[in-house]
């Protein structure tokens, strides 16, 4: 008498209707995540392009001329702004008109010709720290290449041979699109399940549900249904979009990815239902979802690698399903992740799903008695 299939089916039908009946909810569930995928995939890049750079060139020699010309012609630079004093440079950076300024001393070309190291100063806007650092990398490469060419020592530029595996040109989209698929599915799942029990409690229908013949397990299984259906669908569409719309190679196994996706959604459903169960109103549930979802996104390794974080947070991150799912997603797309590695990341999610779903069932049972 733990589960009856007719009762369960009727319940599942009701839960699906609850979420999908209203056209606005349908729209809010499906359209924004897909639009976000599209917009953010193009927006999220740590490459630097279209920047303006100020140049204060006090040297009339060839090396300085070449350096300025090459920076001006580089694909990342939109505009070179000539400056005539250090104060002028300072003002331009302060007003955010340029992100960087090149200050070339008079002795620059002379030093290089005389075999001394030639030094030019680059001033960078530390407020845009990340872009500045990336830009500095570009400029240093360019300068080293030019120096090697002018002094005839081709060596300096390539004492290190770099190869980027899985993504040779470091295309940022290849990282962002699969990962966003995980982040957006997580938020949708949390939102759908987080509200489900809380809404019933706010409207008072939860008590009706409790006095019905439904068992706690049935209630939980039925509540799982909408998120599982909608979010698996969303996740699949996003993965397919990665392959067909963004042309990212998919080297892993689709079957393994789907299995992992289901386990991931289940673990998030468990967390969402737990949150939902302790909240009395929808507002609390939504705030709870945010209070949980935002830090989780930050700590999952999406924005910055997990191993950069302090030990305590890394340890906490082990309880975050998204962390494992991101590894599987990125691996399935680019790395042809072997089944053993997929499994190593699926079982922690399965444990989280089991614990959280049991806790949610236990809560409903507790209400019943």
């Amino acid at each position, binding site marked *: 008498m733990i589960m009856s299939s007719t009762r369960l089916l009727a319940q599942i039908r009701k839960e699906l209707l609850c979420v999908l009946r209203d056209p*606005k909810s349908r729209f*809010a569930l499906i359209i*924004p995540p897909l*639009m976000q995928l599209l917009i*953010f995939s*193009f*927006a999220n890049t*740590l490459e*630097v392009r279209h920047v303006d750079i100020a140049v204060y060139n006090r040297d009339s020699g060839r*090396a300085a001329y070449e350096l300025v010309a090459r920076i001006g012609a580089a694909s990342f630079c939109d505009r070179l702004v000539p400056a005539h004093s250090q104060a002028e440079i300072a003002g331009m*950076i*302060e007003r955010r008109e340029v992100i960087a300024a*090149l200050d070339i001393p008079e002795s620059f070309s002379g030093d290089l010709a005389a075999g*001394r*190291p*030639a030094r*030019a*100063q*680059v001033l*960078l*806007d*530390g*407020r845009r*720290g990340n*872009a500045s650092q*990336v830009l*500095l*990398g570009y400029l240093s490469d360019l*300068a080293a290449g030019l*120096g090697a060419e002018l002094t005839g020592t081709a*060596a*300096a530029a*390539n*004492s*290190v*041979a*770099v190869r*980027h*595996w899985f*993504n040779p040109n470091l295309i*940022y989209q290849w990282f962002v699109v699969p990962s966003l698929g995980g982040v957006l599915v997580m938020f949708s799942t949390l*939102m759908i399940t987080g509200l489900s029990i809380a809404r019933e409690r706010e409207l008072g229908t939860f008590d009706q549900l409790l006095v019905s013949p439904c068992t706690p397990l049935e209630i939980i299984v039925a509540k799982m249904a909408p998120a599982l259906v909608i979010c698996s669908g969303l996740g699949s569409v996003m993965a397919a979009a990665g392959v067909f719309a963004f042309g990212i190679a998919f080297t892993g196994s689709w079957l393994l990815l789907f299995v992992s996706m289901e386990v991931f959604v289940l673990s998030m459903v468990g967390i969402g239902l737990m949150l939902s169960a302790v909240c009395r*109103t*929808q*507002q609390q549930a*939504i*705030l*709870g979802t*945010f*209070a949980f979802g*935002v830090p989780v996104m*930050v700590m999952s390794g999406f*924005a*910055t*690698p997990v191993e*950069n974080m302090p030990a305590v947070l890394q340890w906490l991150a082990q309880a975050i399903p998204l962390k494992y799912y991101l590894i599987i997603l*990125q691996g399935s797309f680019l*790395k042809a992740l072997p089944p053993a*590695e997929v499994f*190593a990341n699926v079982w922690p999610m399965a444990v989280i799903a089991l614990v959280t779903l049991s806790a949610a069932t236990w809560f409903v049972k507790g209400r019943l008695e």
Partner: protein
Amino acid sequence: MSARLDPRRLAALVHKESRQMWRDPATILMAFVLPVVMIFLYAYAVSLDLDKVAIGVVLESDSAGAQSLAAAFAGSRYFAATPARDRREVDRAVVGGRLRGFVVIPQDFDRRVQSAGAQPLVQVVTDGTQPNTAGFVAFYAQNVVGLWQASRGLAPPGLALEPRFWYNPEIESRRFLLPGAIAIIMTMIGTLLTAMVVAREWERGTMEAVISTPVSVVEILLGKLLPYFGLAMAATVICTLLSIHVFGVPLRGSWPALLMLSSAFLVPALGQGLVISSIAKNQFVAAQLALFSGFLPAFLLSGFIFEISSMPLPIRLLTLLVPARYFVASLQTVFLAGDVWSVFIPDTLAMLAIGCGFFLIARAKTKKTLDT
């Protein structure tokens, strides 16, 4: 219904809403606990400073030179090096994501050093699935090799750039991320909370009841917004104090400028919340819309992690409508550079303009529903 504004009625409404707000533990959680948690997370978890990236160092040669280079990698503050003798030991770890790349110091390393640049000295392999980390690994590996060469007098006199980072000489990511985090926290309080609170009134039908009283629409909306304005400002002050005193982010500008910018940002943030609630009239849809139109753009399109100028043109145009974009730029300036009014004034005007747009839409929407 006219736009009458009676100070006594408004004060009563504000009082009622404030009481309601304080009573709800979720609001307090959102306004005071969450900002503190977020600030701590941004300070510790979102670190773009790659120090101690896990890499493998494959030492195929036993010569003294090769070993000293391996030691240079092991001693670098940027890497946590795992020594290996064979590249097969490390490439599985790269596939599994346990290492972010590896450096191969080849068997004929000494010969390569002597032949001065006919062939590269070492090979660096990175995990390209995380392009940002891969780029840093490549850059700092070159750095380590370059320093090693220089220390042995092997570096040819070339052309080099001496970087100087203004406002943030150590390039601590915390210093530019924390101001960005404040913008996100304020978006959550301003847009999400407002959207939910007003949507709840519609959903429960209590909005109709309030509308039937002599109170005007403007008074109702202002009554709802003012307490949340106060709440968001309080959260800002808390976040700022934490950033300055706990995390050592300097406030080189002035408090009045900071508070003015924050107030200006709240106009579009609250306005957006109102528009969402008047469209949605249902807490679930409102939350979903606030998440996707408020929070995520503030996080991803505001320029606080991802540089706006690098985005494609249509998206750069879209960011012009994201109020957080102006707020982040000004906040980073007020914290790190000082009071630069030539940055603040255009940003403030842009935020106010977007805010006015939102309020006009909200008013039009609210009116219409009253007529029907």
